[in-house]
């Protein structure tokens, strides 16, 4: 690719990249710093990573995070896929309206999501804990799954399901052998996105968590109030790597569909 752009444009892009990524790079770099003080560099070490695994608070928070992420992913993937399938059969008007409503949780500020859920739970006297975090995560994850699976369904070639019916397949067989294999990449990448969203959600979880249901992001927040330790840097680095890997994997699976157009539904 030969570009005839102004040389300043390249410099501008470079500065932008530095601006965006410097903070993240600093966290990663200092997670390997053998000094406790963030200000000076006194040598390379893996110690902070090792001590993380010996820290029982971290391990408890990790367990909570994984339980919440796995359960909310399974439930939201099922519900999101079902809603995407159901919506295809409705009229255009309902589709537009419902589609908008299902997209809303992605746009609504997290703080409002968190607050409203907290009010709901206290209204119904549901004790705050893992269960409430799971319910909250399902609420916003459904939207992501729904959007990804719907896009995949729209991208499905016309007439495939009719062709299956014409060849003698009943409703279940049509779904099992034709629709399902076609939208499977969408379901999987929707699930991965839901998992990632649950993994690093702080705001919503913060409102609806209770005693003994601390998740990793909440633990990190609690620690940072007492000063940033290299241990936290190490934990953040792990979270960054896991999230980025999962999202890239989701994109890869979604684009893998044979002979299909590239499709990205999320702004990354």
């Amino acid at each position, binding site marked *: 690719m030969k570009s005839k752009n102004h040389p300043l444009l390249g410099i501008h892009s470079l500065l932008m990249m530095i601006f965006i990524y410097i903070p993240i790079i600093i966290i990663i770099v200092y997670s390997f710093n053998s000094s406790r003080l963030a200000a000076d560099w006194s040598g390379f070490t893996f110690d902070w990573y090792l001590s993380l695994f010996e820290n029982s608070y971290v391990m408890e928070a990790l367990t909570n995070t994984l339980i919440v992420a796995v359960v909310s992913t399974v439930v939201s993937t099922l519900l999101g896929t079902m809603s995407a399938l159901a919506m295809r059969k409705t009229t255009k008007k309902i589709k537009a309206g419902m589609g908008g409503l299902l997209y809303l949780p992605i746009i609504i500020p997290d703080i409002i999501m968190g607050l409203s859920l907290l009010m709901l739970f206290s209204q119904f006297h549901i004790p705050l804990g893992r269960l409430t975090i799971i319910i909250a995560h399902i609420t916003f994850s459904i939207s992501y799954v729904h959007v990804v699976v719907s896009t995949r369904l729209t991208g499905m070639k*016309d007439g495939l399901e009719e062709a299956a019916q014409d060849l003698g397949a009943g409703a279940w067989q049509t779904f099992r052998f034709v629709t399902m294999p*076609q939208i499977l990449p969408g379901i999987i990448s929707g699930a991965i996105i839901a998992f990632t969203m649950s993994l690093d959600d702080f705001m919503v979880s913060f409102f609806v968590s209770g005693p003994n249901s601390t998740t990793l992001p909440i633990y990190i927040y609690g620690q940072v109030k007492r000063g940033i330790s290299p241990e936290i840097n190490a934990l953040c680095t792990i979270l960054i790597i896991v999230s980025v890997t999962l999202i890239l994997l989701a994109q890869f699976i979604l684009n893998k569909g*044979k*002979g299909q157009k590239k499709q990205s539904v999320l702004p990354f």
Partner: protein
Amino acid sequence: MIELAGVEKHFAGQVVVHPLSLTIKEGEFLTLLGPSGCGKTTILRMLAGFEQPTSGRILLDGADLTKLPPNRRDLNLVFQHYALFPHMTVEDNIDFGLKMKKLPTKERRERIEEAVAMTQLTPLMKRYPHQLSGGQQQRVAIARAIANKPKVLLLDEPLGALDLQLRKNLQSELKHLQRSLGITFVYVTHDQDEAMMMSDRIVIMNNGQVEQIGSPREVYSKPTTLFAATFIGENNIFSEEGRLFAVRPEKLHGIRDLDAARRTGQIIDVQYLGSIHKVIVQLDEEPMTVSIVLDSSDNHIWQVGERIGVHWDTRDEVNIGS
């Protein structure tokens, strides 16, 4: 064998197919021909079971299948854009219908072999649809349908997406296939040449209504309506004393004796097309042009701008109403 009895279809209060009664014979190649939106595809979809008629009944071998879902009808549809399953090989695509019918493995094997042999797909069995050309995909769609040995094969513009040369080849291939299988074909197209070349009978449709039903020879030489007269082949329409009639370009004569001619006019275009030689004439009396295929015995070289007499035999007039 197939009988449509007063079949009618409305969409959102609009009539898409006016009441239609038609009997399709066993082993017949019947074409529904008309411009897009004339209702031909809707009729095909009602036969396949994807649309329910608003009223009327559809019978196959005397049994009423109006209310049967598509998967329980003994007919198969070849879709316009093939609708091959992208995640299955050619072989698995063809096997799909046989699997759904729960046929024994041995018979499935045999039927697949037979279907790919007939459509010359044997070397491509392990390929995926996206690895095939348009013409090959089209063949897979046909193989997948005929492997089920349906009583009737429905085809929805199956050659619509292909280029002209390939289309011509596949037209004769399809016609040959139909003869050797002996299956009834109901074929939908908007291409009149295709309809003429393949069909035993043509149903000409316009605005949800049947304009004429007949053999290619009948609809060409004896059109009964203005639409039928102009939709198939080129035609010249004249009006005399409130009577409308059509005369084909090859039945018109261009003569130099203007006084003896029925009409006179001026040549506005001369077209030499190899086997035929045509002139387009602007008539003097009427605001219309006519097209004349010149007799090969006429050695006069007509020029643009020249005056010409237009003549025809009364017996070549085809009445198309008033």
